[in-house]
């Protein structure tokens, strides 16, 4: 197998894993390969890495694909190509390298193992919540601070005060003194946007466990963008968990919730949305006001209990906005015991967030 083909297969595999490789990157990569000494594996890896990987979340996938294609020790066997002036066509450039290295490759060592794209290689941001096993959850956990930071930056941008407003004549004239009476800087009235009050209801039962824990963790990290954040957990009954979120520890939430809020479990331990909404209206209805936004995190699988849509209707009438975040795909909503189709009519907006990146986008839209 020639080196040309091997490189092209390497790029194709990377693209399949979700790492975009453009033509100019290929060109840079080849130029870099011509510059370095191939006897040391690390230089070879670094040359590929710095030209092809441009995002931190791609690093692990890149490493996996690299180890699949280039077995350790193969770079020493390849003979070092001589420096030649750069050429501009992809195949031309690779011809250049492959011309020098073509005899040196033992065929068995170079065969890349095409063992299907396992879940382990997927970008953790696109990992489906329902299909995640323990390893995947750990990987998502490591990326959690990145997402929290990105959301925070987005919220800061949104809450930026609007600077294109009514002109403040007095200030403008005063500042114009510095430029000799010519108003070069125009000063406007700055208006600050009001921060929302958020009430979050989270289903913490087994089916949506990972999803709601991440959602709760993200919300608590964004607390400073809300005037007030109150969170409630429910399975069969509802309980307030705001005091448990005050410590910043994201993923031990579920155990602390189940320990601290025993009411949540109820009698049988199966999710009951109807009873939850009823309980919320009866006990916490007074917290709703025209300024509150209600966020519901759950899959709407009611286990054939009563719907009590009137309760959700009441909630909507009393608050400004009701949003529903469902970890299932939109196509699964009408199936089984999911009452999403009924409930979504009572919500202002519903989002389907099967992956971390969708969850991030959805929360960013608040």
């Amino acid at each position, binding site marked *: 197998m020639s080196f040309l083909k091997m490189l092209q297969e390497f790029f194709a595999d990377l693209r399949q894993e979700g790492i975009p490789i453009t033509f100019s990157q290929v060109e*840079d990569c080849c130029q870099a390969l011509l510059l370095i000494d191939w006897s040391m594996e690390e230089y070879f890896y670094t040359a590929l890495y*710095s*030209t092809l990987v*441009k995002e931190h979340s791609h690093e692990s996938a890149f490493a996996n694909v690299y180890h699949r294609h280039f077995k350790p020790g193969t770079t020493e066997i390849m003979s070092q190509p001589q420096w030649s002036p750069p050429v501009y066509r992809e195949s031309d450039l690779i011809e250049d390298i492959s011309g020098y290295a073509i005899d040196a490759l033992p065929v068995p060592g170079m065969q890349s193992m095409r063992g299907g794209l396992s879940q382990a290689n997927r970008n953790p941001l696109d990992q489906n919540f329902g299909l995640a096993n*323990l390893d995947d959850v750990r990987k998502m956990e490591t990326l959690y601070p990145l997402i929290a930071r990105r959301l925070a930056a987005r919220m800061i941008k949104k809450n930026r005060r609007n600077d294109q407003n009514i002109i403040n004549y007095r200030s403008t004239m005063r500042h114009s003194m510095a*430029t000799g009476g010519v108003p070069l800087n125009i000063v406007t009235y700055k208006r600050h946007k009001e921060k929302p009050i958020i009430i979050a209801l989270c289903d913490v039962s087994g089916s949506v466990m990972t999803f709601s824990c991440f959602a709760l963790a993200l919300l608590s990290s964004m607390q400073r963008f809300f005037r007030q954040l109150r969170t409630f957990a429910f399975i069969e009954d509802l309980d307030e968990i705001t005091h448990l979120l005050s410590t*910043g*520890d*994201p993923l031990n939430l*579920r155990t602390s919730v189940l320990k601290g809020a025993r009411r949540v479990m109820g009698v049988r331990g199966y999710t009951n949305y109807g009873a939850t909404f009823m309980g919320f209206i009866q006990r916490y209805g007074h917290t709703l006001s025209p300024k509150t936004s209600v966020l519901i995190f759950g899959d709407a699988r009611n286990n054939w209990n009563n719907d009590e849509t009137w309760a959700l209707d009441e909630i909507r009438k009393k608050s400004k906005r009701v949003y529903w975040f469902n970890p299932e795909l939109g196509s699964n909503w009408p199936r089984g015991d999911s009452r999403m189709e009924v409930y979504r009519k009572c919500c202002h907006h519903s989002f389907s967030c099967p992956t971390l990146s969708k969850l991030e986008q959805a929360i960013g839209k608040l």
Partner: protein
Amino acid sequence: MQDKIRNIKDGMINAGYVCDDKTATVLYLAEALHKPLIVEGPAGVGKTGLAQAFSLMKNISLVRLQCYEGIDESKALYEWNYKRQLLHIQAVANKNIDVIEVEQDIFSENYLLRRPLLQSISSPAPTVLLIDEIDKVDFDFEAMLLELLSEYQMTIPELGTIKALNIPFVFLTSNATRELSEALKRRCLWLYLDFPNSEIEQQILLLKVPGITQLMAGKIAAVAHSIRQVELKKAPSIAEILDWASALLDMGIDDLDVETTLQTLTIIIKHREDAVKLEGMMRSRNDLSFQPSPTSNRGWR
């Protein structure tokens, strides 16, 4: 080539920065390919320091542009000194000078305020251009920067086109609070600087804190490494660990134990919840390994 990399590493150590093989290789590639370098990583890991040490090593001047949200051309490229121009106009108002001559005089080099980007392009000697925190700027600034980085020339309407005499070494640092635009990433090489392992951190301590013993450096590096494995709101940065080491040296402490660490914890931990958590870990096991104690509940994993 190995000695080239070793030369780079030694040169950086002379300039006061310890880098590993990967960083040195990427620096070598960036210089050889004349490409800008995007350096990403958590806060306090030495991204800005890398550019500064590089400029010291090459013995060329460093031009720094600190980016922030809302930065625009006038702060980054150039600006006319309006106030001085107005003063000049008013000063010559009563004299009989030709209008065209006044105009030409006003839009000349004296009245041009050169900002960092223009400075680095128009300087006769090669420079290192450090664009700090590029992820804070907005989209149109990035587009303007892109144009600059591909052509290395700038057009000022009244003065004409200014071409770069020497292509500067460009470093862009980012905290990854948002995705950079694809076009920018494609133009540059990329490096992710993570927190170093214990050996490199020990080297950094020995280099930057004069008078520290090998033993102490090793212990501090090991403790720093294990603290970073704990889930904290903010992991201690390298600069904070250096401050901690010099503080311990000043206090005359030559061994690390739980009590001293507790007393000086505020140097490296800046959030109350982190401090409480670490204190709990230290007290429960009475050592500095910072592992969760056997009785802690990490239930559903």
